[in-house]
């Protein structure tokens, strides 16, 4: 029998003479790294719990709606539709982005890794754009996954899927457009807040506080004293009417906009041509010319976005 023999050689340091990619590849790598970071990929089980838990939580309402649709049919009024979905999951999305978005940029500054990124062949703007795009990618997955599940569920539970699609195909571009607006919103504000602190908990607390506190603040400033009366129409029908005096008078409709978390949902409703929930804040927002909520949304996204990019533009090690 021959004896197997092997030798290990130390061939020393080897220079790299393969292909080298440019700046776009570096930005792509950073985007991919950010995406993996937010999902906790390549990390322990604990790091995956929150993102995957949130993914399940945002899809869960869609599963519930599909179950209802199997019982009642997809076009029954009782079944929430594509237009209602972002309203249903908006609070979950806001919470998720408040907690997870800071994870993308704060540890880089806190640990000093940003010093290594900024000496790679990218600019500081490339860095922050890649990080922003990473979280936008995840947000898009979150907002669309439930809608896609709803669509599949409605198609499967409809008596005639082809008829259903012919009658409702416009919902698809609508939920894509509205979802993009929701994702842009929940991406930009938390990242902008995160660029001003090196503590993830502070960033999360500020974002949650802004979204949560703005609800009662807007509610308080738009509270009203209403008088209800009944009158009989010429056809003999009884109609109930109300006359409300807002505590902040005519300014109430502007204070209604202070419920910032509602900004993308207002635009979603505009895209779907849907009614609001009918609460006083919705009624006041409806009283505005449509350009006002659009401008307000643009301000809420572009303002923090500009702050985020300005903050990093001046960053050096």
């Amino acid at each position, binding site marked *: 029998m021959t004896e197997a023999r092997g030798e290990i050689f130390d061939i*020393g*340091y*080897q*220079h*790299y003479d*393969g*292909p*080298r*990619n*440019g*700046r776009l*590849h*570096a930005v792509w*790598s*950073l985007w991919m*790294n950010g995406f993996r970071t937010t999902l906790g990929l*390549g*990390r*322990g089980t604990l*790091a995956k719990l929150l993102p995957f838990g949130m993914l399940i939580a945002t899809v869960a309402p869609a599963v519930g709606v599909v179950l209802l649709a199997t019982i009642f049919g997809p076009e029954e009024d009782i079944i929430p539709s594509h237009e209602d979905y972002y309203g249903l999951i908006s609070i979950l999305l806001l919470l998720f982005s408040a907690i997870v978005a800071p994870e993308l940029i704060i*540890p*880089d500054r806190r*640990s*000093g*890794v940003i*010093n*290594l*990124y*900024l*000496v*790679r*062949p*990218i*600019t500081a703007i490339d860095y922050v754009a890649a990080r922003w795009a990473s979280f936008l990618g995840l947000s898009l997955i979150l907002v669309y996954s439930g809608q896609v599940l709803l669509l599949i569920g409605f198609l499967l539970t409809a008596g005639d899927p082809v008829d259903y699609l012919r009658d409702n195909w416009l919902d698809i571009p609508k939920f894509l457009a509205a979802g993009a607006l929701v994702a842009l919103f929940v991406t930009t504000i938390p990242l902008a807040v995160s660029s001003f602190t090196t503590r993830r908990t502070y960033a999360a607390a500020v974002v949650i506080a802004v979204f949560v506190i703005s609800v009662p603040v807007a509610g308080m400033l738009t509270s009203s004293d209403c008088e209800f009366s009944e009158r009989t129409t010429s056809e003999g029908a009884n109609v109930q009417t109300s006359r409300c005096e807002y505590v902040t008078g005519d300014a109430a409709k502007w204070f209604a906009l202070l419920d910032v978390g509602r900004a993308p949902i207002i635009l979603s409703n505009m895209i779907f041509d849907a009614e609001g929930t009918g609460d006083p804040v919705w009624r006041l927002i409806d009283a505005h010319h449509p350009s006002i909520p659009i401008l307000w949304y643009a301000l809420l996204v572009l303002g923090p976005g500009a702050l985020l990019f300005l903050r990093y533009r001046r960053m*050096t*090690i």
Partner: protein
Amino acid sequence: MTGPTAGRPLLQSNSLTKRYGDTLALDSVDIQVFDGITGLLGPNGAGKSTAMKLFLGLLSPTSGTAEVLGEKPYENVEVRARLGYMPEHDCLPDAITASEFLGHMAQMSGIPAVAARTRAADILRHVGLDEERYRHIKEYSTGMKQRVKLAQALVHDPVMVLLDEPTAGLDPGGREEMLQLIRRTGREFGISIMLSSHLMGDVESTCDRIIVIEGGKIIEQGTVSQFTQETETLVIDVDDRRDEVVAALQGRGIEAAIDGLSIVVQRQSEEQFDDIRDAIVEADARLRRLAPSRGQISDIFRRTSA
């Protein structure tokens, strides 16, 4: 090292000036750095870090130019793909393995994904972290983290690496290991190095050339041997009776002075050695050493402050 960069400077500055408000950090500095290991030596606040940031393209000069491989890095960031940088301070993530981190850093410098993983494994082996490469960085000692910092600067096979105070925070053993690794990087791997330090010993034992910077100005530059060559001073060490030896030397017309525990005389001729021998015999002193003194890098700072 020979190669495409042989003969032309890797780093070059012309009248490089950087001003932060009223503070002049660099004042019309001209530097040329070629292949090999170059030490940028100077006290804290001398302008070393500012010079490094200008060469990395993180700052733009107030006036003058800073070029890396013929490109201005503050105008063309892509040239950084051929540079490595090891910062002085902490810069490593905690929650990932060294292997994954280095693979990512290689990709960030343009290496495709598969090659990046291979390079990461190779470099971690070269810096002595082969066995630990799948451990999370937070579990590493200070010395191991310092090696990861060096590894990330080398993983994309740069033409040159800039090391900012690479031995900061290390104990004497760790410091010597790091200096050895730097020497290997420069001499065996053929990667040129610019090393900034305020520790003369580190620079003297590691570098081929030295640039001494103080108050934003270059005060000396040259090879290490140029600064440490023999001087025209002779040093005489005797066990005792120093005063008597000095008197005997002066009696023979030799100017001598006591400097610490040694006697120093200015070297004049070969015959002088006979006179010195006779003076020691006359003073009945026991000779320990008679040798020409060597220059020290610290002399540069003494001359400057004088």
